[in-house]
């Protein structure tokens, strides 16, 4: 069975860099989730999938103090038992391969 929850340990997220004095630190917010959703949509599209991120996952911000990052993205599968859930597992596996996320799959 697909684990219902995954965590993407985000180190940081930055938007457009225009700063000529190096790094910009940005607050993680709903815009971060939206941007990551757009990224996953693009990856799914490139992979030939007609599914969207929202069809497969819910994504929200979470705190994970043990990480060096100040925030993580909590990714939950919408349906862990259905065919869609299995497809979700396969796609998430692909995504995690790309993202190098530890995605658990129990069965």
């Amino acid at each position, binding site marked *: 069975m697909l684990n219902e929850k995954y*965590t*993407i*340990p*985000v*180190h*940081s*997220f*930055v*938007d*457009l*860099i*225009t*700063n*000529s*004095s*190096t*790094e*910009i*630190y*940005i*607050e*993680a*917010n*709903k*815009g971060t989730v939206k*941007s*990551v959703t*757009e*990224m996953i949509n*693009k*990856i799914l599209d*490139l992979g030939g999938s007609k599914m969207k991120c929202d069809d497969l996952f819910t994504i929200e*911000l979470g705190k994970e103090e*043990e*990480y*060096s*990052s*100040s*925030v993580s993205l909590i990714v939950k599968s919408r349906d862990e038992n259905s065919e869609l859930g299995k497809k979700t597992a396969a796609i998430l596996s692909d995504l995690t391969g*790309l*993202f*190098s*996320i*530890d995605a658990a799959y129990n069965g």
Partner: protein
Amino acid sequence: MHNDIKTRREEAANYSSVFYNGKTLRIPIDKNKPITELQYPEFLDISLGNKCETGKCPWCYAKGNPKGVHYPDVANRINDYFGKMTPNQRPYQVAIGGQQEPLEHPEFEQVLQTFSALGIVPNYTTNGVLFDNRAVELTQKYCGGVAITLHPHLKEYWSKAIDLALANKLRTNIHFIVSDTASIDLLKEMYAKYNGKIDYFVLLPYMNVGFAAKNPKDIDYAYLEQWLDEVHSFANIAFGANFYKFLKPLKKWNVSLYPPEILSKYLVCDEAMKVYKSSFEMIQVRG
């Protein structure tokens, strides 16, 4: 043209990332370890010269001045420098500014063309004086966006530049140099005026180096913190790296913090094409 998705990975630095539509998501390869300094920066600040005639800013940390020079042949140098890199080694984006007003440089357009052809998104910072319809066209054609710096003595220019950028739906950041109480009052005023219209207010601390060393200022951190607390949920405020020491002990506002300059460097496009730690700390790291 900037809608390709890209990824980068440096095992030694425990770094992986995805770049899409101007946004970068960084993920540690081993989630239990920090990301460390990259061998190949994810983004670079770029200096095309130290000749600056339009600004004459008495606090310029980089000492840009009318007697400086526009480095010659910069488009070719940039093409040679980054063209030798693999896609995994090339930065996602660059910020052109450094020591001068980049719109003054005679090769500015060629530089944007060159970066774009290399698959690197160029962005730049302007004081607004030369920002016109042609600059808008170039920004739309080649850049991810533009930042307009609110130097108080150039208000008539940056005010028009912001209006022009927004009218043309450019992705627009405001760079605001934070120092004393009066500067933060001005920031509050500008935030009230432009909040919701521009992409980000990028707050940069006044640095008592370069020309500013002759007129040093203390930053009113307490007042800044008070205002940021009032703003509270700020979706469009970003902090320059030199605010790291201010932000780190506060542990507020969910800001993504990491040690300065581990992901970026500063490239001076003179004949030597040397890479430095940052435009504030001219410590050579490569080249």
